[in-house]
Each structure stands twice: as C-alpha cells, then as structure tokens.
C-alpha cells in the first residue's frame, strides 16, 4: 500500500459526506487541513505527521507533576494545556491534606492517568490509574503522539511483537510517552526500535522490517555471549 502525502489545501476527494478528521469541505470538495498522509478506508481522514497532542475524554496518558497547588496537582501531559489532578484522587487511606501533598506525589514524579473531563476553558481533569504504578527503575521515551497507532499496530500486532521479542515491559500512552522497564540492554533495543517505527511510520511493510531488525539484533547479542 502506497501512502499519499498531502499538504494543507490539497484536494483529496469529491465525497464531501465522508470527510473526516484532518480535512475540511469547501464547495462540496474535501481538502486537507494538515500535512500528513490520507486514510480513505471509511471516512476520508488526514493522519498528520506531527502536531501537538490534544487530550480527549478517556485518553490514558503519562503525566509529570510540575506544580502543587492545593487542592490540585498540576500535571504536564505533553499538550499545550496543563492538566490537574484533584487531591481526592489519592487513595483514601493516604490522608492527603494541605501541606503534605508532596508526600504522595512530588514534583517531577511520573504517573499514569485517565482524562476524565475537559471543559470549554480547556481545564483538563485527570483520574489516577492505580494499576499502573511507574515505580522503580525504568525509562521514559517520547515520540510524536501521531505515531502511537503505528506503535500499537493493527489489532495490537506491532506492540505484541515488541513485547515478545524485547522481553521488557512496554507501556504506550496516548500522548506519545512510552514507559519501558527491563534490563538496560532490553530497554536499549526497545527504545531503538520504537524510535525507528516513529521515524518510518509513513512507510509500508514496516512490521516485517521491524521483525527482521529485532531478529538480527537478538542474533547479534547471542553471538556476543557465545564469544
């Protein structure tokens, strides 16, 4: 499959009723609104190459605490807007009150959260996802959020392969932040592969190339051990 690259203002189609995200309609014609590739499966969409992450309700994101302002933690989620996490989101047994919020989550701490609400003033409310504790030694890498679907792959095929072959824990958040946990070597391979996928996201036959890359990599390591 060959991807068609478009720039803002490019004519895509006459089917105005199928116009989707990343497009606009003028005089019954569909034009691109962003620099990216066309996806014409059902709706006509333009998938942008890059762009700032815009949170939507239900997204699971990795955030970093940047400020504590009672009764909220202010969280950077890699978008143009700051998000906030209310004090009451901490587990009830923690007894969070004014002055000791940093004891539970301090500035620069990472956390996994779900976007539960966005109002018209672009205030973003988060809910902690307790099952995903980012504790211990790990690594955070960041890719453009537009490449996340490519990392996941169709029905999760790509991420499944990465997890199987890299043997390390990989958590991909909607905002393009990825949490890795494993040995140094495993994390090196995983981050290299993920950055490769992000760089070549617009090309076809990527899954095969990634599989090939991973196989040759693990062979190299095995040889290294034998020697």
């Amino acid at each position, binding site marked *: 499959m060959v991807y068609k*690259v478009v*720039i803002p*203002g490019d004519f895509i189609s006459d089917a105005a009723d199928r116009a989707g995200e990343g497009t606009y309609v003028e005089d019954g014609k569909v034009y691109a609104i962003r620099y990216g590739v066309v996806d014409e499966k059902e709706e006509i969409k333009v998938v942008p190459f*890059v*762009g*700032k992450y815009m949170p939507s309700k239900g997204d699971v994101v990795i955030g970093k605490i940047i400020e504590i302002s009672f009764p909220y933690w202010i969280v950077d989620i890699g978008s143009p807007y700051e998000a906030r996490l209310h004090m009451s989101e901490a587990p009830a047994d923690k007894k969070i009150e004014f002055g000791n919020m940093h004891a539970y989550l301090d500035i620069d701490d990472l956390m996994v959260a779900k976007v539960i609400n966005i109002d018209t003033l672009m205030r973003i409310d988060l809910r902690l996802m307790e099952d995903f504790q980012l504790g211990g030694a790990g690594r955070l890498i960041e890719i453009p959020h537009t490449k996340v679907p490519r990392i996941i792959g169709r029905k999760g095929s790509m991420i499944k392969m990465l997890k199987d072959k890299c043997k390390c824990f990989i958590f991909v958040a909607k905002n393009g932040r990825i949490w890795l946990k494993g040995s140094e070597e495993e994390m090196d391979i995983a981050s290299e592969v993920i950055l490769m996928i992000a760089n070549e996201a617009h090309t076809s036959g990527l899954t095969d190339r990634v599989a090939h890359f991973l196989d040759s990599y693990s062979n190299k390591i095995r040889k290294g051990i034998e020697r």
Partner: protein
Amino acid sequence: MKEDGIELIKDGKRLDGRGFDELRPIKIEVGVLKRADGSCYFELGDNKVIAAVYGPREMHPRHAQDAKMAVLKYRYNMAPFSVEERKRPGPDRRSVEISKISREALEPVILKEYYPKTEIDVYVEILQSDAGTRTAGINAASVALADAGIPMRDLVSSVAVGKIDGEVVLDLNAVEDNNGEADMPIAMIVRRNTITALQMDGRMTKEEFEKGLKLAMNACRRIYELQRTALIERYSEM
C-alpha cells in the same frame, strides 16, 4: 535612476541576465531545525532565510490569551551580518512593520480556533539579504507552519514585482530595488486566488499596477508548486 548612470536593463535583459518575468533561483529545505516544531530554510537568489515555528503552546503573558483561539506571533529579524553595512541588532521600525504585515498575510489560512488560549510562534531570521526578504520570509514561514503540523486551509506564497527603467519586472534584487522606481511585494493564497498582503513603495500607473499584479500572481503559482514539492519530497525519500 538614469542620473546615477546605472542602466538596469540592457538589450531586453536585466543586470543579472534575467528576463522581465523571471524569478531568481529558489531552494527550499524542510525540517532543518531539530529543536523547533517546524522549520524551513528558504533561498531566493542571494536571500537566505530560516523560519522556525513553535507551538501551539501555553500563552504567556496570561492576560494576552484569547479564550476562543490561538494567538499568532511573528518575528521578522535581520541578522547584523545580513546586509552590506552592519545592521544594528534588535527590532526597529522596519522589522516591526514587516512582522505585522507578514503575520496578517498568514493569519487567514491558520485555523486558530483549534487551539484556544495558546500561542503559535513564528521566528523568521534573515541570514543574508538581497531585496525581497519579507516575501522569502512569508514563503519560509508558511512551509514551516505546515511542517509543524499546524492546521491550515492552504499555504501562502509571496513574491515582489517592481518597476525599473520604466518596465514592470518580477522579483527585484538589491541593485534594482535601490535604483528602481517602484517595489510591490504581494502574498497570496494560490488555490483561492486571494491576496493576503500587498504593499507598494514608489509609483506605478494603474496599467502598470495591473500588469505587475498579474505577473506576481503567476509567479506565486510557481512558488507554490516549489513549496508543495519540498514538503511532499520530505516524506517520499524512503
């Protein structure tokens, strides 16, 4: 001006050998800066311009935020070494004016409503100048904005026309600009045939103006194709 003894047109050709409707050679490179969200290097003859786009990002100062849309900021800046005699660094009357008209040339195509309360920064640095830097800046900024993934309805293309030795010619260089009778930079949205910026320095008759406008609009179409090719090729290499 004849009294200076500079003859700008000889045997139907200009000093640099161009015809009346010929552009200077153009070179466009997309994504030249790693730290910026989008960038573009643009050459128009001896003009060398770099544009960087940041954002949309949180707007500071807060009171300048617009609750309904993003705020576009555009800074045109000439490097001290960009001209023959050292330019005193920093904003001056001229660059403030150019920043304003360039911003207004780009604003109609940007969908600012997508990002309320944010700002989009466009920095245009003139590394080398040879007349027509504001048009080169607008061309570069427009490509850099697309590269940054900013939602836009179209690209903006820009070029200047002028009058030298009584003839209407396209894309003046520094010698022609300094010794000519008029200079008129325009910016346009090619697909819609809409002019988003037009200035004129000097005098032209109504007929000359109309002829010049037609010349410039045709040249914008050629520039648009070059901008488009540069963007498409960036992701077609592999």
